[in-house]
Structures are given as C-alpha cells and as structure tokens.
C-alpha cells in the first residue's frame, strides 16, 4: 500500500516513516509544493499531511489537491488544537485529523480506518475476537456457529465494532438505529443490547452508566 507522507520535521518524519514502513510503502516529502506534486503524480492510497509546512501551507495543499479531483484519503497532522482549525481542515476536504503529539497505535488505527472507509467494506470479512462478520452477506458467526441477528441488532453490533475502543453514547446509537425523527420507547436500546448480549456473549459490550456502550479495542 502506498502512503505519502508530507512532513517537514526531520525527526518526526523519520519516525513516522520507519514506524509505518512495515505495513506501507512510504514516500516522504518535506515541502508543501513537492508534496502536492507527488499527491497528483503518484496517486497514493493514503496521505499524511502536516499543516505547518515550508513552501506551501498544508491547508493550501489540501485545497488544491481536492480542487484537482484527488480523492486520496488524507489524514492531517496538526499542532493546533483550536476547534476552528479542525473545522477548517475538515471543510477543505481532510478525512481525519490527528493532534500532535499522538501515539503510534492511534496513527495506525486511523490510517486503517481511513483506508477501510475509502475502499468500502464490500469485500471485507471482519474479525473481532471470536466473532467473524461477513459484511456483504451481513452474516455473523461466533466460533464458526452462525448467529441470527435482527436488522437492528446487526446495525448496533457493527456500529459498536466500528467504534471499538470508544464509547458510543445512547443518543448516537439511537440516532443510528432509528434516525432523528422516530419516537421510540425509552428502553428500546436496552432491549436490543440485552438481546445482542444473549447472542454474542455477555462480556463483549461494556455498559458505561449514564452514557452508553462500548466494545474494547481488538
């Protein structure tokens, strides 16, 4: 998989390149203009773009690339955590952003998620603990034994697995399952979670009291 890294800091750039070189073929540019050119020419699968760059500002690179129709998923690295910066970055077509300093695991996870999202899940077989999920067939097996899940239970499970390691608030889950407009029973979500737990096992889904639910990272 080709990954384009545009980062002017020598130490950080080298660190990222070396860390990622096991899973990706990393091309590294230190200058915004060269980075943009590479983005246009090499058409990499993923790009990691620093915002503070010599030659051409990161946001500028992003804007021009998107203008020229480049659809490569781009992850932005920024030292600024102002909300305005974040919104501006996402507006200009960044797919995700990561605030410096970040952990390697976080970077890898985000890149994986970006790539998966970009490719779509159509051909994916997903593995989570003892669960195997065929996202095309919407088939879930536990230790090889097929499970029969209702549509909502399946949606719920996929949402939690997608966001594994993060807490999904009840509100978000309800919105996901029912949309914004639907009136629903106050304990509808609990009922689904209860049923889901009965099928996939009690321990996979944690309850966060007063907030929502989560599944552990892999």
């Amino acid at each position: 998989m080709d990954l384009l890294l545009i980062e002017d800091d020598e130490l950080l750039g080298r660190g990222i390149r070396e860390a990622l070189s096991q899973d990706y073929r990393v091309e590294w540019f230190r200058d915004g203009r060269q980075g943009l050119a590479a983005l246009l020419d090499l058409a990499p699968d993923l790009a990691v773009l620093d915002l503070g760059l010599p030659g051409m500002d990161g946001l500028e690179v992003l804007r021009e690339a998107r203008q020229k129709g480049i659809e490569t998923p781009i992850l932005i690295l920024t030292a600024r955590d102002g909300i305005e910066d974040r919104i501006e970055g996402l507006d200009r077509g960044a797919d995700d952003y990561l605030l410096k300093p970040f952990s390697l695991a976080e970077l890898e996870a985000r890149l994986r998620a970006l790539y998966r999202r970009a490719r779509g899940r159509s051909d994916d077989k997903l593995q989570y603990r003892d669960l195997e999920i065929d996202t095309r067939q919407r088939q879930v097996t536990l230790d090889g034994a097929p499970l029969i899940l209702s549509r909502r239970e399946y949606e719920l499970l996929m949402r939690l697995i997608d966001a594994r390691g993060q807490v999904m608030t009840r509100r978000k889950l309800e919105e996901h399952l029912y949309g914004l407009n639907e009136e629903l029973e106050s304990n509808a979500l609990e009922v689904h979670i209860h049923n889901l737990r009965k099928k996939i096992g009690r321990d996979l889904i944690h309850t966060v009291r007063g907030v929502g639910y989560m599944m552990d990272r892999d």
Partner: protein
Amino acid sequence: MRSIRRFMLLTLLLLLSLSAMITVFWTYLHSSHEVEEVFDASLVQNAKVLHGQVIAYRQRAALQELQRSVSLERLDQAPDDDDYHSGNANDPGHPYEYQVGFQAGSLDGELWVSTPPDFPVVERVEPGFMTVGEGDNRWRLYTLRNPELGIWVRSGHRMAVRDELTGQIAAKLLLPIVVVLPGLLLLLSLGIRRGLAPLETIRQSLASRRSDDLQPLPSERLPSELVPVVGSMNDLFARVASTLDRERRFTADAAHELRTPLAALRIHLEKLRLPETQSADLMCSIDRMERVVTQLLMLARIEPQRGKVPLKPLNLSQRCCSLVAELYPKALERGLSIEFEEGADLQVAGDETLLDILLRNLIENAIRYTCAEDVIRVRLSRESDRACIEVIDHGRGIAEADRQKVLERFYREGRQSVEGAGLGLSIVVLIVELHNGELRLEETPGGGLTVRVLLPGI
C-alpha cells in the same frame, strides 16, 4: 485620608475669614480714629461756645440762672431713641443728655456751672484733652483756660458714647460678612466639586473596571491638568497589555513548537517496541510533557478571552455525556470506570469549547488521582437556579488546608507521585470565573475529592 476637596474648602474658608477679619479690624481702627477726631472737635467747639456764654453771664446771678436752666429735671418718662428720632422735637430732654456735659468755674476754685450731676470733678485745671474715670464713668474732657479773666470751661462726654458708635460701625461691617459666609461656603463647595468632577469621573471608571481590563481611559474633554496624568496611565496600560500579550504569545508559540518534537519522541519510542518495563517510565514522562504543553496552550488561549467570551445557551447534559464517553477509554486503561448521573436536562449559558476543557480537566484529574478499580462519578443536578456539576472520586483527596493553594497555578501539593502539572485546576478556576460560576472543593464522604462547579442556569 486626605481629600483635595476638603483641603481646598478649608484653606479657602480660612483665607476668606482671615481677610474678612482684617478688613473689619482695620475699618474699626480707622473709623474709631475718625470718630474720635470728630468727637474731640465737637468737644473743643462746645468748650468755646460755653466759654463765650460764661463770659456773657459773668455776673453771679446770671451764672446761677445758667446753672438752673441746664439742671432742669428731665421728663419723668424719658423718651427713648426711637421716639426722639421720630421727631418729638419739643421734648425738653433726651436720653443722651446725661452722656454729655460741661462745667465752668473760676480759677480760684469756684465751680459755677456743672451738668449733668455726675460730671467728673477735676481739681487741676489743665488746658487740653484728658480722659478720666473708670468703666461706665469714663469721660473725655476738654478744658479751656482763660487766665486773663480767671475762668475755665470744660466740656466732656462719656467714652461709652463713642465706644457705642465705633462698636456699631464694626458690627454693621461684620454683619454682611457673617450672613454671606455660609452662602459663600456653599457656593465654594459646589464650585470645587464641579472643578474636581473630571477626577471623580476617572475614579469611577477605574473603580468599575475589571482588574484585568487594560483598555485605555477616555481622554477627550479632560481639563489640561489631567491630560498628562491620564496619558501616562494609558501608556502604562498599553505597555502592560502588550507585555501580557507578548507573554501569552510566547507561551502559545513555545507550546506549539514543543508538540512536534514531542510527537517525534513518542513515535521513535513506540517504534522501538520496548517491553513495558523498560518503556513505562519514558512513556510516563512523555505523557506528562504532553499534558503540560496542552495545558499551557489552554491557558494561553483562555486568558486573553477574559471578560469577552460570548456565552450561549448550551445543553450541559449533552456535553457531560460526550466528555464522559470520550474519556471513558482512558479510565478503562487505568482499571477505572466512570458513571454519569444526569439529574435533569440542564441548560446553561456558556462557551462550549471552554466548558469542554473544564469538564475534561476535572475528569482527567479524577482519573489521575484515583486508584484502580474505583468508580468516578460525574453528577449533574439543579441547585435552585444554578446548574451543579460534581466530579466525585475516591482518591486521596486534598487536605482542607491545601484546597485554596491547589487552585493556584503550578501548585502540586503532595500528589507528585502521580504525574500531573498542577495547571489543571487553575484552568478550571479561570473557566469558572469566565462563566460567573463558583468552584468548591469538598471531601467525598468516605475519602476522596468532590469538585463541585456551580454555573448560572437559564
């Protein structure tokens, strides 16, 4: 305390009274001198007229007649001053008759004529003026001596008459001053107040501003004496503001600059994939540096906003819920869990970014200072018309004596064993202030710290 107004008023009052007194005293002296001259002149004239009369009445019988006519009994009911002035000119007497008098006699020692009865008798006949007697009976006398004819005449009046006149003159002079002075004082006081009004305006505008407000004072329409003062103050404000600004920018820049090398440090360390035992301390240090940098940036961002954060209605319950959701994995890593108790759907007037920082700081603090397998509780409730956020942990808590100090920047109390920069709570204090809220540190029943933030509700 010294007051310019009081000082000016007192000084002016003293000066005015002094000058009034000098005027009155001087006029009194001068007029009494003039009065004496006039009175003395009239004594001389009276004596001369009498002298002529005495020569004309030289025969003994005629002199007795003269004595009889001047000794006529006054009316039993003596008219007073007013009646006299109102024109009872036919009355044969006047109350002042006993105030003036004359004598005539021979140089042999014979006294021919004397009126009024208590006219002082002076044996020695010396020509010219003299003053005799005591108290009410002091007389001013003028003696005329005619050795050729062997006679003398003496006219005189009581000193009380002239004293009364000069006294009256002085009193009439003093009266307007005494009457006018209070009025003058009032006008002066108003005038001074009016004159000092610009000072008062400056005082009020200084008193009503926040301690961190460095806006210049208005300098238009100032009296010329105050222009340089206000000018220097505004210069000072500007200098302080720019120094503060530079300091904040420096903090922000420094923190930003630190983030990239920190990120590099972390990546290189993680890349080594060292066993937990070797990397834990290093990771811990990096975590701590990262947190300090983040908090410094927060402070740098919040401080310039003091007093000008637009507060908008926002759903506090939702913010709490999503912050707990966000931080839950962190708690989980440390073997802790967080529970969110939502009392009601609470709305407050606030700034979302700042309230997120506040909640994040409180919850992260609780995570950091709580031992494993504990539950941190985030509770939201309504307290009369305010929203109350409580973050309750069962960690070591903070001794009552230290609670105030903990809120000061960089203070770390005895908690050093667990990493922490001590900036967290001072950031919380700042944000609470910006929201006109209240922060309380309390002890959790059974041990631990309960942080209670009260925000004005809507």
